[in-house]
């Protein structure tokens, strides 16, 4: 993984951070010196000391009976971990497309002016560090930044100036004004509506046999809401039937696809429903343990969610002997900042304390998942829907939506529109329906399903958003006519994939850079028709990548070539099939200077 966005590789100059031995040992003891809890340990050290230095790495390795590189390779993978310098306040400013649309550039400039360093650096006194980060799930309230786990939204230059002054004065992050996350639910449907008591779904679930419960979910035709759309009941059935010492439920709350933020909203508005859905899944597949894998960007929710869990335990909706039927409890596992960890096998690796590198499949997680045991990974929204399905019946659920896409979908809508936010909609609506609903005018393009999805043009706005046509995990980004689609959107998305590739597969690691280079060549006006042909041809190679990230990393370019070909064509040189950007004079300048000689260009 590219580390441009992390604090790594900046040498701590005289600015030593330390996690003293006693706190380190407290942390290690808290996690029983268990190497599979390495993520938690690193997060705790990072929070305590602001960074994880070599000394701590050695201590951790010793205590966990790992080699030093085992610890280092996990540490170096996640961009919220720092192995070197620390800043009292680490500012992570989102650099996603929508952040840019909403004025990120001004905000970044103001931060740089006020702090006195450029992005990627820490101020000399070690107080404030400025870093870029990929989408933080706040697209409906950009520009936004995370500072020491607190989220500051709708930033303006004035707000930034105030925040910087307070940081300079050493104010505690919790006392700095402006940290505020809005939920922006713009349309509530049957899943979000609070019409049943907490625990009612679970109570009904345990009255059924697990097989009957799975059959009920199958009847509902519920498909995974994390993007891939796999039938939930089938996943549970496979998992239940797979042999193992234990079974696990994992709720995927990594929500890293730029433009998605509905899981954050569900987790703040209806956390009990998510946990209840996990318990139902646990009962169905025969698991006693559930893990909510929550992206580090949502760390600010931690105490809130822990309280909810505690309350559910005290109501005996979690813990031992739930409704006299089964045991089930949940822990929260935080990530460390890596989009690829949303991929289910990478998520499992990460939860085991390792680098978030996707596994080879098969075996699938339902057979060998967390700790090599059968594991069902389900999205936050999927698990929420289960609660309502069990409570109100599959038939009711099937009456909503279309035949292939039953029920409702929570859409995260942002970009150039009047009313960004979360909309719960019955499947079967068109792109045009969305645009009308959110007050979007003069629309050039709509990005369906985030960067890995499809960028559609106005002629396609009558297409259906559903599994059977434009499939999506729910991210809709609206791009107005005034935007430079290729430069502002496609290039940004391509950079996102370069940044977030885990690096295991050559095409994902290297061809993404080739794609960017070609796109930039075209943007400089030096492209030719062959460049387009080449990029289309490379798609075959991208399909050889191991996981979905690599499979879709070229989609921003490929879908815009398909749907906005004229934008590319307008920039191409027409009467030639080759353009060289090589410039001898520029290429020899530095070496001649180093050697102290005059360039001799001799008519080249």
């Amino acid at each position: 993984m590219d580390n441009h966005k992390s604090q790594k590789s900046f040498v701590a100059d005289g600015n030593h951070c330390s996690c003293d031995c006693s706190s380190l040992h407290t942390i290690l003891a808290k996690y029983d010196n268990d190497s599979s809890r390495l993520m938690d340990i690193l997060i705790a050290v990072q929070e305590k000391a602001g960074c994880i230095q070599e000394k701590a790495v050695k201590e951790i390795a010793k205590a966990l009976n790992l080699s030093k590189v085992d610890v280092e390779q996990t540490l170096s993978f996640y961009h919220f971990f720092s192995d070197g310098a620390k800043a009292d306040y680490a500012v992570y400013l989102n650099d996603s497309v929508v952040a840019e649309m909403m004025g990120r550039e001004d905000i970044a400039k103001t931060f740089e002016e006020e702090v006195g360093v450029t992005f990627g650096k820490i101020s000399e006194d070690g107080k404030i560090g400025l870093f870029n980060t990929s989408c933080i799930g706040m697209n409906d309230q950009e520009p936004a930044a995370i500072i020491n786990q607190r989220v500051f939204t709708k930033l303006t230059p004035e707000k930034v100036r105030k925040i910087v002054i307070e940081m300079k004065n050493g104010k505690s992050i919790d006392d700095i004004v402006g940290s505020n996350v809005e939920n922006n639910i713009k349309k509530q449907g049957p899943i979000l509506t609070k019409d049943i008591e907490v625990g009612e779904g679970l109570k009904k679930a345990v009255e059924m046999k697990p097989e009957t419960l799975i059959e009920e979910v199958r009847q509902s035709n519920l498909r995974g809401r994390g993007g891939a759309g796999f039938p939930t009941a089938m996943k549970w059935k496979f998992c239940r039937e797979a042999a193992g010492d234990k079974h696990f439920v994992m709720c995927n709350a990594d929500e890293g696809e730029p433009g998605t933020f509905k899981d954050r909203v569900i987790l703040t508005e209806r956390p009990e429903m998510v946990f209840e859905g996990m318990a139902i899944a646990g009962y169905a597949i025969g698991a006693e343990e559930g893990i909510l894998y929550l992206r580090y960007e949502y760390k600010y929710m931690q105490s809130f969610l822990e309280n909810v869990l505690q309350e559910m335990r005290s109501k005996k909706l979690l813990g031992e002997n739930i409704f006299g039927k089964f045991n089930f409890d949940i822990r929260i596992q935080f990530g460390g900042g890596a989009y690829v960890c949303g991929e289910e096998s990478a998520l499992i690796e990460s939860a085991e304390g390792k680098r978030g590198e996707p596994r080879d499949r098969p075996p699938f997680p339902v057979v060998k998942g967390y700790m090599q045991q059968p594991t069902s990974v389900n999205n936050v929204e999927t698990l929420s829907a289960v609660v309502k399905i069990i409570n109100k019946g599959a038939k009711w659920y099937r009456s909503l939506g279309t035949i292939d896409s039953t029920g409702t979908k929570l859409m995260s809508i942002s970009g150039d529109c009047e009313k960004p936010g979360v909309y719960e909609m019955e499947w079967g609506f068109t792109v045009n329906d969305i645009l009308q609903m959110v007050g979007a005018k003069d629309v050039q393009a709509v990005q369906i399903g985030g960067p890995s999805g499809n960028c559609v043009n106005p002629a396609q706005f009558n297409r259906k958003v559903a599994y059977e046509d434009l499939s999506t995990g729910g991210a809709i980004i609206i791009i107005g006519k005034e935007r430079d689609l290729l430069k502002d959107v496609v290039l940004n998305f391509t950079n996102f994939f370069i940044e977030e590739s885990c690096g295991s597969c050559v095409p994902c690691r290297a061809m993404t850079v080739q794609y960017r280079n070609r796109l930039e060549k075209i943007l400089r006006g030096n492209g030719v028709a062959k460049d387009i042909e080449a990029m289309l041809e490379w798609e075959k190679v991208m399909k050889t990548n191991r996981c979905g990230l690599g499979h879709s990393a070229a989609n921003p370019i490929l879908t815009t070539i398909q749907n906005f070909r004229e934008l590319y064509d307008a920039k191409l040189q027409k009467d030639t099939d080759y353009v060289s950007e090589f410039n001898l004079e520029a290429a020899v300048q530095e070496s001649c200077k180093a050697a102290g000689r005059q360039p001799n260009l001799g008519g080249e």
Partner: protein
Amino acid sequence: MSKPVVATTSLAGCFGCHMSLLDIDERILDLIELVEFNKSPIDDIKTFTKECDIGIIEGGCCNSENVHVLKEFRKHCKTLVVIGECGRTGGLPAMRNNNASITECLEEAYLNCVSVQANDEKIIPNDDELPMILDRVYPCNEVVKIDYFLPGCAPRADLIWNALVALVTGDEMNLPYEVVKYD
């Protein structure tokens, strides 16, 4: 009909691709029946003496001389074929592209490296006769248009042979697995 004329050169390469070309063994006798060589290290003709049909390039461009020769090849050859990874991608020499500037590379090579012993005046070679070093190593197709690429480090002799025969005869190229595998 006169025989097709072939020129070859090794730019920022290791001559390994030329060795592979010679690896066609006794077929070299057929080759000289089939084509005539012009500028090439094989016959030691140093400058183009006529227009050529096929130019074979090994290696990428790391200095101004490489660029000059490559442009000459483009000017004098109808078809340019790059053989090997260095010409195609920059290859091994391009390892310097990643982590160090050319200034750092030169300082390491001529001033700071432990094996530098007799450079008391701390000179980085600067004679006007010397080619100028480029800021990074460029694959050939970033400098001029290349018609065909033969991959491999080095490409197998049979791959080079089959490609040449196909170019000269106009027949479809024979590409069995054994010829394009890399291990």
